[in-house]
């Protein structure tokens, strides 16, 4: 293949991707209907983290604005999920700062970290539903643990959350996680993450291992939640199409280094070699 034909193929690919981004944005509706963006909810500043000789993150600076959905893209082992763990305070950086709602999560007392986590919802890659608990108890876990709400109110909120993720409460509430399909598990995981109405939602590979139709459903669900609950979201994924479909901005990590941050269209137009290689 000659260089000219490579360039032609490349520009064709980018044209197609641009079209896809336009379609995705059109699906979401007018951009102005997205929640207004003001003041960062999460600020990552010059983050560095290494496990032994293996560098996981190197000088990562990134922020998430209020009401925004930011997708963090990258190959396997690029450090994407580590960013979520740092935001949750499950891991601590070697250097740099992680500020959530303006508070440095590595340098506040545990009680404060727990309080910050109560404003977050996390959707795990494998859903991480508690095997021994029914869907009802899984979704209501947070409310049972941290509130004194009467059982009737908890039941109402659980039903509301299951409705929100397009699951029929009466059909699934008594099922155990082992009795659910992959897509249903993800939806129950999302229902559990939003039941206490968090201000920040974190998704770890929400569409991995799902078929294209279920992937589209989950993507629509993420967009719907952003619009209906007015949350700020960080989605860690390696699925470019999904990221373009649901995100206001996209960040690309390569071996722990942030190589791109910007809108989906900017990413498609980027001249950076790694970005182009990733999109190809």
């Amino acid at each position, binding site marked *: 293949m000659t260089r000219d034909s490579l360039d032609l193929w490349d520009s064709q690919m980018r044209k197609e991707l641009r079209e896809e981004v336009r379609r995705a944005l059109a699906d979401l509706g007018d951009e102005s209907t997205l929640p207004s963006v003001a003041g960062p909810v999460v600020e990552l500043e010059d983050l560095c983290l290494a496990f032994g000789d293996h560098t996981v993150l190197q000088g990562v600076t990134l922020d998430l604005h209020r009401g925004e959905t930011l997708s963090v893209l990258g190959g396997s082992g690029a450090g994407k999920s580590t960013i979520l763990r740092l935001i949750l305070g499950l891991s601590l950086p070697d250097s740099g700062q992680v500020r959530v709602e303006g508070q440095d999560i590595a340098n506040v007392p545990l009680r404060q970290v727990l309080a910050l986590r109560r404003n977050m919802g996390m959707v*795990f890659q494998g859903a991480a539903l508690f095997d021994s608990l029914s869907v009802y108890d899984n979704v209501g876990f947070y409310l049972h643990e941290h509130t004194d709400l009467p059982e009737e109110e908890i039941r109402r909120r659980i039903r509301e959350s299951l409705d929100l993720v397009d699951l029929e409460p009466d059909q699934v509430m008594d099922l155990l996680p082992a009795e659910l399909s992959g897509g249903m598990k993800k939806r129950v995981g999302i229902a559990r993450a939003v039941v206490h109405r968090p201000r920040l939602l974190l998704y770890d590979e929400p569409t991995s291992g799902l078929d294209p139709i279920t992937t589209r459903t989950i993507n629509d669900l993420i967009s719907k939640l952003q619009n209906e609950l007015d949350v700020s979201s960080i989605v860690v994924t390696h699925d470019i199409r999904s990221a373009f479909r649901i995100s206001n901005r996209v960040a690309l990590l390569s071996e722990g280094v942030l190589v791109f941050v910007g809108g989906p269209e900017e990413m498609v137009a980027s001249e950076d070699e790694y970005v182009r290689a990733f999109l190809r």
Partner: protein
Amino acid sequence: MSLSETASTPLRYLNDTLKGWAFHTQEYFRLLGRSLHGSLSRPFYGRDLVIQMDAIGVGSIGIVLLTGLFTGMVLALQSAVEMKQFGATIYIGRLVGASTIRELGPVLTALMVTGRAGSGMAAEIGAMKVTEQVDALYTMSVDPVRKLVVPRFVAAIVCLPLLTVITDVVAILGGMLIAVVKLDLTMGLYMRSVYLTMAETGFIFRYIPIDLFSGLLKPVFFGAIIAITGCYFGLKTSGGTEGVGRAATRAVVTTSVFILATDYFLTQVLIALLIE
């Protein structure tokens, strides 16, 4: 690799190994401390405690009954061979009673519960760890130590002495069965012999035989060891399903060694405190 680097490799390995042990020891005792604190402060997970008592206590009754029965029977059988030569078969009750109540009851019960429940704790918590369920607890501001470890810790501490009583009783009855059927002793003679051996060592708090007291104090420690070791290896699990299997195996081996070593030191201390 230079000569100095080659020479420093074993030293570095030794250094890393020792650091690793120190770290694990520190983390192990930290988990023990947090579990003790969690047992005495809110929030209490009553439902989880009942579930664990059912799993550790009720679930282990069958194997403890069989262990006690056959241990008592084989003790009586083996000792009868020797004692017959001296016409001392009337002392079978003393031998079975003393060895069961002082040592075999607590230790065998603990080892059986280790195999059954200790491995289960490591595997269950390990599976939760590798499927991110433990992380899910953290993200929902729930302390996994309080939610997962404390109920198992309290359940094991409560259930082990009770299971030991069952082992002791069944072992003594097993020994009696052999004494009556094979050695033609009467039940009364056998039971009196068991009582005398307990009475000989003296009483604590006026009515409790010292042997029985020390035999029921040890299981409290063994219960703590079973729960903390099982949960510790569970919480440290990594490496997917293979890691879960490894955690369960390590938990059983480590707990068994800890129980036998602790038994020796506890016996020393109890003899010094209560008998001497």
